[in-house]
């Protein structure tokens, strides 16, 4: 996907403002407007800037040095962006797919949630490729669990071993049975 750079000063607000200015002759227009009827106060200091839409002097554009995924709900790139995690690998393919859809769709978020999980596995494979055997125990911070919740940790590991053994036994039996069936 080609990243589109937004112009530095103005982005036409299509006809939005022109349309909005056409209705002021409707009988009673604005009569009951009350500036105090604004539940965003004091979090937002309303000054009408919203009506300028994206027409403002933008800060300097960060050069695009990596692929940046961009929401289709904006006309171009934001002036700065993170470069820590450009899309790559299988998770990257899924992310690019997700960004064809708006943030208002499951087709956007569900693949992204999936890509996060695939990224975890990709990270482990990448470690192995670089000759690093990932120390999951250390990366999960379980040294702290050993220090502060030793009993719980032992119980969890023991449960895991028992469940894994039971599953292995079950699978072995199923395999045997299906082997007999043929």
């Amino acid at each position, binding site marked *: 996907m080609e990243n589109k750079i937004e112009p530095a000063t103005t982005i036409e607000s299509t006809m939005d403002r022109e349309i909005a200015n056409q209705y002021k002759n409707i009988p009673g227009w604005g009569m009951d407007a009350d500036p105090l009827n604004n539940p965003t106060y004091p*979090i937002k200091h309303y000054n009408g800037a*919203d009506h300028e839409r994206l027409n403002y002097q933008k800060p300097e554009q960060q050069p695009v040095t990596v692929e940046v995924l961009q*929401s289709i709900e904006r006309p171009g790139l934001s002036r700065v962006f*993170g470069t820590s995690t450009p899309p790559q690998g299988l998770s990257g393919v899924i992310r690019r797919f997700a960004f064809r859809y708006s943030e208002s769709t499951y087709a956007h978020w569900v693949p992204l949630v999936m890509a996060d999980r695939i990224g975890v596995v990709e990270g482990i494979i990448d470690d192995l490729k670089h000759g690093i055997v990932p120390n999951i125990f250390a990366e*999960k*911070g379980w*040294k*702290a*669990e050993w220090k502060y919740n030793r009993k719980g940790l032992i119980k969890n590991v023991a449960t895991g071993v028992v469940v894994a053994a039971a599953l292995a036994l079950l699978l072995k039996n199923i395999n045997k049975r299906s082997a007999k069936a043929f």
Partner: protein
Amino acid sequence: MVPFNIACGACPFCQQELFGNCHESNSEATAVGGIFGYSHTAGGYDGGQAEYVRVPYADVGPTIIPEGMDLDDAVMLTDVTPTGYQAAEMGGIQKGDTVVVFGAGPVGIMAARCAWFFGAGRVIIIDHLDYRLEFAKSYAYCEAYNFKDMEDPVVFLKRTTGWLGADVCIDAVGCEAAGNVVQSLVGRKLPLTGGSATALHWAINSVKKGGIVSIVGVYGPLDALVPIGNVVNKGITIRANQASVKRLMPKLIDHVMAGRLNPKGLISHRIPLEEVAEGYHIFSAKRDNCIKPVLIPPSASAA
């Protein structure tokens, strides 16, 4: 002091002090601003838990640490303190109001403490960890109750507020909420929704008709299970946002320097940056009576 959110200062949102909702710091979503170390969705920036960090718009967001301010107070002013303060601020608390805070984590405890600045009459904090409730009681001068001791926290809160409901409820929990099996399953284990919305569910059902629910708990972008019909029929006002750190900074500096607010009092653990994995585990699994850990990079040890 570098706020956790990245703000350009030029877009309509920054111009109106919504510094947590900047439009020029995140290409990947319009539904969230740019945040350090907060996933792809918040802009894909590296986090601040590092020796060095790239700070976009460094001439806009950061504030120079005032002379004489304890560095532990300074670090707490970049995230937890303004988030807790804004949670109370968004509650629109009127003098004498009964304010209920769900979640006795660092942000919830800070929200409970800050509710007094707005003249709360009663502040009640709800959690399921006794050590945190004990801490909250003395730090935030509030009442503290364990929802595991209750049959139904909503009925408990109705009864204790004279059967009217709380004037203001604050959700300081977000997507990791415990307390409801269905919410935990679809929001945390699977996850099919934007998070377990148990705290928000209780907040909506515990507040009085016409009351205000303030949300600072973090949820994912997917839908969550929320009793929206009750919001309509009770006439509830919901106010929510990521904290606007830069907007609140002058006021919070004043509270801290005048000795009215003690953010560093929340710090329970000081962990070397090299042991960050253990630090995360201690915090997320709530080990060793953890309230708030801070990470100390090697270069800061002399400070």
